[in-house]
């Protein structure tokens, strides 16, 4: 991906280069045209001079005896030449062309004027040539000067373009920065970006309005969740107290006690479901603080201490490999504990007797990772895909569980900017990896 600033600068550079190239080609053509026109005028002038001369002194002095019927002369630097010869032809010539002549073993490009005329019934051909070498030199020099000038201009404008682009796009940079650093619309910086570019102003304005709107909706949704949860918890509370009081009656039939206890368990499921939803809503609306510093391995050790009696009882081997520790700043300890506890507890739950659960913590490719692997029953692809969704989980986690535990784990991980990845193979086991930012 390329930044807009760079793209604009690149486009400017390329367009300037193309323009310069075109300009140079055009200029050299123009220079050549002008020069040739000048040479041609020069040649015509010279022809008039020669014809004047011939008119004055006759043709004979040009045609010396030894060379019988031709005359030729060029100056020592071979810049010009003039030749006159007798010809026998019908048509009249009067044109100027570019042609090369071999003079003393040297091929030189000339602009040559060919002119035929009659003197005393005899046709003569007059050729006056002007070397193009000087013109070419001139052209090259002028081109060079222009080129240097243009390169200079390009560099200057490129630098100013870069500066100006940077200045111009600063509001956009600010908007992007505002968007980048946030994980939820509630964290969006609502102070307007200062700009007098109407496009950026509308973009910023639209974004702010949208964020505010989304944030409002989110807040409303969370408030509704929280309110509904409270409304639900009150009747649950009444029912629970009633059942508990019943259970305390001395003369109660044991079979009825058992039924009451079952009802309490069912009620507890409702309670934990509501509490879990409440919990997630609270995490997502950032009602918890992140201001504790924790040592990850200490927390892991605590979790393993809690769970090891259960694992032992079940005959699941709990292994720990704390290779490296991390002092994790800006954490909420009890949320962090719950996040990992859920996964370790599930791993033990889903691993049959004789199986293993391995908890590892280490740095890998510069990132701190906690992995929890089990040799349990694993998951199919479709089970894995719904793993973190509330209620949609396709895994039967047991009668007491609401199946929302992993959704909680996910929201706590998001809250701490921790990434979770899961690899699993049916009948082989599952590995949860927590990748710290």
């Amino acid at each position, binding site marked *: 991906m390329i930044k807009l600033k760079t793209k604009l600068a690149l486009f400017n550079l390329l367009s300037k280069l193309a323009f310069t190239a075109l300009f140079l080609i055009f200029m050299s053509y123009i220079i050549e045209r002008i020069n040739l026109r000048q040479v041609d005028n020069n040649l015509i002038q010279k022809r008039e001079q020669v014809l004047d001369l011939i008119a004055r002194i006759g043709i004979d002095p040009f045609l010396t005896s030894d060379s019988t019927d031709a005359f030729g002369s060029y100056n020592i630097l071979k810049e010009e030449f003039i030749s006159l010869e007798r010809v026998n032809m019908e048509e009249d010539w009067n044109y100027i062309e570019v042609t090369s002549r071999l003079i003393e073993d040297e091929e030189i490009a000339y602009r040559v004027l060919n002119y035929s005329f009659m003197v005393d019934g005899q046709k003569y051909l007059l050729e006056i040539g002007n070397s193009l070498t000087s013109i070419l030199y001139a052209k090259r020099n002028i081109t060079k000067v222009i080129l240097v000038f243009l390169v200079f201009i390009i560099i200057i404008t490129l630098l100013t373009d870069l500066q100006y682009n940077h200045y111009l796009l600063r509001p956009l940079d600010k908007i992007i920065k505002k968007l980048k650093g946030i994980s939820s619309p509630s964290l969006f910086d609502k102070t307007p970006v200062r700009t007098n570019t109407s496009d950026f102003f509308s973009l910023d304005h639209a974004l702010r309005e949208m964020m505010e709107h989304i944030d409002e909706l989110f807040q409303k949704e969370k408030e509704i969740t929280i309110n509904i949860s409270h409304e639900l918890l009150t009747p649950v*509370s009444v029912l629970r107290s009633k059942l508990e009081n019943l259970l305390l009656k001395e003369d109660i039939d044991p079979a009825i006690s058992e039924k009451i206890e079952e009802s309490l368990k069912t009620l507890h499921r409702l309670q934990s479901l509501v509490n*879990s939803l409440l*919990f997630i809503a609270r995490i997502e609306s950032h009602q918890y603080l992140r201001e504790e510093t924790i040592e990850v391995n200490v927390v892991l050790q605590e979790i393993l201490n809690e769970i090891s009696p259960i694992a032992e009882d079940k005959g699941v081997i709990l292994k720990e490999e704390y290779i490296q520790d991390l002092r994790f700043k800006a954490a909420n300890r009890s949320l962090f504990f719950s996040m990992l506890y859920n996964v370790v507890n599930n791993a033990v739950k889903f691993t049959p007797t004789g199986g293993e659960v391995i908890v590892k913590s280490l740095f890998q490719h510069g990132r701190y990772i906690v992995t929890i692997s089990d040799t349990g029953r694993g998951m199919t692809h479709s089970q894995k895909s719904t793993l973190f969704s509330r209620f949609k989980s396709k895994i039967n986690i047991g009668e007491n569980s609401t199946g929302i535990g992993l959704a909680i784990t996910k929201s706590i991980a998001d809250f701490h900017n921790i990434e979770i990845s899961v690899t699993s193979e049916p009948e082989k086991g599952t590995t949860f990896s927590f990748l710290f930012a």
Partner: protein
Amino acid sequence: MNVLIVEDEKGLANEIAAFLKAENLLCDMAYSGSEASEKIAINLYDFVLLDLGLPDYNGLDLIREARKNNSEASFIIITARGAVEDKVKGLNLGADDYLAKPFALIELLSRINAVARRKFNVINQVIQLGNFIMQTQSRKLLYEGREVELTKKEYDLLLYLVLNQNKVLTRLQLYEHIWGNILDDQYDSNFIDVHIKNLRKKLNAFAATPWLETVRGVGYRVSADQ
């Protein structure tokens, strides 16, 4: 002890009262904040169980008022809101404890007792269990002078059963008390069974524990009279 129950949900207030009365506590009830405010101003209570979600009153103001009137009452906040800041605010205002709805009545009673023990400075309790002796201050269980090594969880579990002796505690109540820091969602009745099993194993190495009973289908009980 004298308890004022401030709770707008009458059904719940009545159940709490019935339960506490059975525990020989004197209960008074206020179904609204203004009623509670009046009662606190007139009467002396040892405890106020305060629901923060009163329709007519900010529950926290009741604590402020009571403190202004130099009331000695200990406040236990009960709320379904459970928001962290409420908890912090309440405790900062001098509330003694905090319970989120729905709670076990047994848990409420233990909180009241715990606050009472702190208040009357009876932290060092020595409890006799057959030939075992539980020392609450040093958190030790002794058998004829020898210490029985228990994990923290095992000790807490036993203590909770002992402090609520002669009452059947359900696995759920035990779980909530011991693993209160962990989510409800992870509740597994097996947790309690495993710990009780381990606890029994350790105790039985010293002596039989007929006082630690399993109540089929319901939970566990420590009986004092055996």
